[in-house]
Every structure is written in C-alpha cells, then in structure tokens.
C-alpha cells in the first residue's frame, strides 16, 4: 500500500536478540519502520524499549557477541543492506547513513583535534585528500555555528553544546541520505537543547536529509518530527503523523506517555505515570507485552498478540481495544 511513497529506509520484521549467559534478551521483536525521503521520523519509547538497538542494527553496529540480528529486512533506498560485508557496510556508514550519539562528551576522541575528527569522515568517503577535507571541515564548522579557527582545539576545550555541534558537523559532513539521531539532546541542558534542535532542523531542511529521531521526549517529537512511531518491547505499537498520535491517541501506552508529562494548565493535577516497569526482555509476557501494565487489559490481552488496526491509511495501533467499528471513534480511554 505504500508503493507510491519514496522510502529512504524500510525495516521489515526486524528481530534482534542479545544472547547472554543469563538468557536471550529479545530487544527487538518484529519491528516495522518506514521512513520517507526528506521526512523526519520520531521513535519514542521508554528506556529499554529497543530504540537504540533498532538504530544500531540499521548501521550493523550491534555488539556481536552477544547481539544477533535474527531476522528481518533492512532496506536503504530499496536495496537490502542487511548482511552486507564489513567493507561495503563501511562505505554506507557515515556516507549514506550517519549517526549522532547520545552523549557528545564521550562520542569525541579526546586526543584528536576536532577538525581532524571531522576531516576523518570526509577522507574516508571522498577523494581529495587531507587538505580538501580540512577545507570542507571548516565549511561544516561555520555551518554549525563554530568558528573554524577553533578546529585546532581538543574536545575538552569545548562545552557540551559545542561538542554536540561538532558531532552534528561530523554526521552531516558527507551529506548523508539518512541521519539517525539517538537522543541527541538528552545530555544537554534545555537552552542548548533548543539551539541544537533548531540547528538540526535547519540543516535537515537545507540538505533535504531524512532523519530518524530517537527520543523519549514527546516535546522534541512535536517540535521536529513528521511521523511518529511508538515503540514498546521492541515493536511499533502505534504509528501515525503528529495529529494522529497527539490528538487521536489510541494505544493505552501512548496515552500513558502523555499522562506522564506534567500539565502546566492544571498544576493540581497529579502526574499519572505508567504503573510498573518495562517487562523483562528475557521473559516477555504472552500476548500483548503491555497487558500487565495496562489499565484496560482484558482476557484476550494475555492470550494473543493484537493485530494492526488502521484508523486511516497510515495511523495504526496494535491493541485489542479496537476493532473496525470503534477505531475511528476512539474515546475508549480518557486523557488525564
């Protein structure tokens, strides 16, 4: 049904396990994800839901052992990239797909000057040698709002926000088709968060880069994303555009995420966090993995995994509460 859309990334039925001595951790369980060209796709979920594992498996960067991609198809611009040889994967990393890591403090090499680190990416993927790479590096630094002359400094001479700018410059240096941002602002304070987000937004528009934004912050999603997927226990449980997810929330878990946000208008309202914790991924509950924490759990929830129910051609939810008759109306659950 999505054949007419141009997809940059298409993940189908991805399954990733970490095989440890204590058991098999099922981090991602049949995840489907489609990212359209030029769009920003948000991936929200709690800690341990499998967000980072999904991102890492796109770049084939999962620590192995213990991580294994068991099954699934990962297509980049219609070409399957799962199971490519290291050599071919190295050409994709940083060039076609690049990644921004969570903590800029640790994702830069402390003993290399920052211009050398940015130039490194360019040298890997473009011919032209070091001099050319440094020239381009200085352009990139200007682009992210850093004076090029500071390129000769080391990461410890930069503040956190500036380091994240450097990381963004690095990620965008080769004009990637897809940028994966793994909680790029989690380690920064709010004012810097806003700056970095604006920067990313501008650069995305400038280069027409597609983006996978991984976050647990619904504010960031509202700010920057076109489409949202809510991930729980390694599966997309609700997917849609901003209006679908924010205004026509269907899944009780997504509801719970919204209820966990403080409400400014009604300060007396109590926070309603989702009760309980992420299920143990070595021993996922049968049926819907959310049912032990769900206020609306029914008998069937512990027995069978719910099918996808489409509200419109893109917004779907995986929950037994809904069927063809009531999905349009919703309103089964009340927003706190």
């Amino acid at each position, binding site marked *: 049904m999505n054949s007419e859309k141009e997809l940059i990334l298409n993940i189908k039925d991805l399954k990733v396990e970490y095989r440890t001595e204590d058991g098999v951790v099922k981090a991602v369980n049949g995840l489907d994800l489609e990212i359209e060209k030029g769009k920003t796709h948000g991936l929200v979920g709690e800690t341990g839901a499998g967000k980072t594992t999904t991102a890492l498996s796109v770049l084939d960067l999962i620590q192995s052992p213990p991580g294994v991609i068991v099954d699934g198809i990962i297509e980049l611009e219609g070409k399957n990239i799962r199971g490519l040889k290291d050599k071919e994967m*190295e050409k*994709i990393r940083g060039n076609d797909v690049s990644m921004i890591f969570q903590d800029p403090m640790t994702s830069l090499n402390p*003993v*290399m000057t920052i211009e050398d680190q940015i130039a490194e*990416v360019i040298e890997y993927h473009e011919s032209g040698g070091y001099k050319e790479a440094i020239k381009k590096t200085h352009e990139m630094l200007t682009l992210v709002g850093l004076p090029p002359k500071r390129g000769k400094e080391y990461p410890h001479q930069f503040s956190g926000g500036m380091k994240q700018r450097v*990381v963004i410059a690095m990620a965008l240096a080769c004009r990637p088709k897809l940028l994966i941002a793994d909680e790029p602002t989690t380690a920064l304070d709010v004012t810097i968060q806003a700056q970095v987000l604006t920067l990313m937004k501008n650069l995305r528009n400038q280069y027409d880069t597609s983006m996978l934004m991984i976050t647990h912050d619904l504010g960031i999603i509202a700010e920057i994303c076109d489409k949202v997927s809510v991930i729980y226990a390694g599966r997309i449980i609700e997917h849609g555009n901003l209006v679908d997810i924010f205004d026509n929330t269907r899944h009780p878990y997504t509801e719970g995420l919204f209820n966990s946000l403080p409400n400014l208008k009604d300060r007396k309202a109590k926070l309603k966090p989702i009760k309980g914790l992420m299920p143990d991924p070595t021993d996922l509950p049968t049926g819907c993995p959310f049912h032990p924490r769900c206020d609306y759990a029914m008998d069937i929830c512990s027995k069978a995994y719910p099918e996808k129910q489409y509200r419109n051609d893109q917004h779907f939810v995986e929950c037994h509460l809904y069927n063809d008759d009531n999905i349009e109306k919703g309103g089964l659950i009340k927003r706190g």
Partner: protein
Amino acid sequence: MTDNRNPVDALKIKKKYKKQNQLKEIWHRLKKNKTSVLGLVIIGFIIILSIASGFIYDYDKDIISQNISERLQFPSIEHPFGTDELGRDIMARIIYGSRTSLSIGFITVVLALIVGGMLGAVSGFYGGYVDNIIMRAMDIFLAIPGTLFAITIVAALGTSTINLMIALSISSIPRFARIVRSSVMTVRDVEFVEAARAIGANNFRIITQHVIPNSLAPVIVQTTLSVATIILTIAGLSFLGLGVSAPQPEWGAMLSSARTYMREYSYMTLFPGLAIMVTILSLNLLGDGLRDALDPRLK
C-alpha cells in the same frame, strides 16, 4: 606539581597555546613539571655525551689501552674519577660506556614496544580466542624470569650485543603486551570508538587512530621505566660476565671488576654506580612527567 600562577597569567598562556601545535603544547605542559624537566636535561646531557664521546676520546688510546704506571689513582684534576686497576681513566670509560647502555636500552625497548604493542592491541581489540591465544603465549614468557631468560639465550647463542638485545626484548614483550592490551580494552568500548565505526572507519583505522592514541599514557610510562630496567639488567648481566665482553667499557662490567678493589679504592665502584643511578632516576622522572604532559585531559 601544582600550578600556582595567577589566573590572568594562566589565561594568557592558554591563549598562546591555541596557536601552537601539539608537540609544543606537550612541551609546555612538560615544562611545568620541574623534576621531569630535570630528568629530561640529565638524559639529554647523557645522550649528548655519549654521542660526543666518539669525538672526545680515541677508543684505542683512551678507553682500552692499559697504562700500568697510572693504575689505581684517586680522583685528581687529571683523572676526575680516578683510574682503574689497569690505569684507564674511569671518567672516559663511564662516558664511553653510556653508549652501550643507552643504545641497548633504547633499541631493546623499542623492539619490545613494537612487537608487544601490536600483540597487545590486537588481542585487546578483538578479544575472544585471538586474545586467548596471544595472552597465553605471553603468560608462558612471563613465567620465565627475564634475567634468567637472557642468560639462557646468551649462553645458547653466545655473548654478543645483538643476542643480548634479542634476549632482553623478548623478555620485555609480555609486559608491553599486557599493558597495551589492558588499556586498549578500556578504550575499545568507549562511545567514540563506536562513533568512529559509525562514520565508516575500518578496524585498522580505529585501532591506529582512536584506540592506540588513547591508550598511550601507561605505555609511555612503561617505556621509560623499561629503558631503566633494561639498563639495569645489562649492568647485571655484564656484572656476571654475560653481557658486554671484556675491554668494551660498560657500567655493570666496570662495577664487577671494581668490586675486588672496593675496600681500598671505593671510588672505582662509586662512579659507575652513580652513573647507573642517575640515568635510571632521570628516566623515571621523565616518564612520570611525560605521562602527565601527554594526556590533554589533565591540564
């Protein structure tokens, strides 16, 4: 070494830093540590002396020719360190002897560092059975006492400087392999290594560009300390008659021949002993200072 300049000065200096390259920066940081500068000065002085000794002294005339009429003279203006039992000037022999000690010491350590460093980096980075095979082999070498191993090799292959160097570097390889391995292992899983992989770096680039430079600090200390240990071992082996052969001046060999005369002519043991001690002390001081200076995180 605390930095007690006032903050304004420190700022000015920091501004100056920015325009300088990395080597200069390391030098500036090393300069703050007075004791290691002292070590560096002494080591530099010894190296210059050992190079110059070939021009100052004539090997046949000054270093090995015997002059019985001047034997066992106490230090004087003519012979600042006195003369030995064969009438040779001790100062000349000590200066000339630094060539042997320093060259064997440095060459041995560099050999051990290259081989041990590569083994350690590979085994720390890849882990698993590669690590197991390499490290168990290293364990076997570690089980053999270094000096004893050197004695065995020299006894089997004959007394020569090259055999000595081979023997000593083989016995230092495991130490380097262990140190490099352990620091590589701590760096291997750091996020910037993952980030480097995410920009398309291959394993070779990751090891050489990101892992090794970040695991250098303990290796540098080990290197300077090892030069010191090797110099000591050479002296020990020569003392036992297994090191450098007879007329060639070497500090340990000089100590060995002087010990017969220790009661009456103590200066004969004093000066070679001092030479060994000063060299090793300054190497150790320098090693400590370098460790601090090479780490840009400590500033």
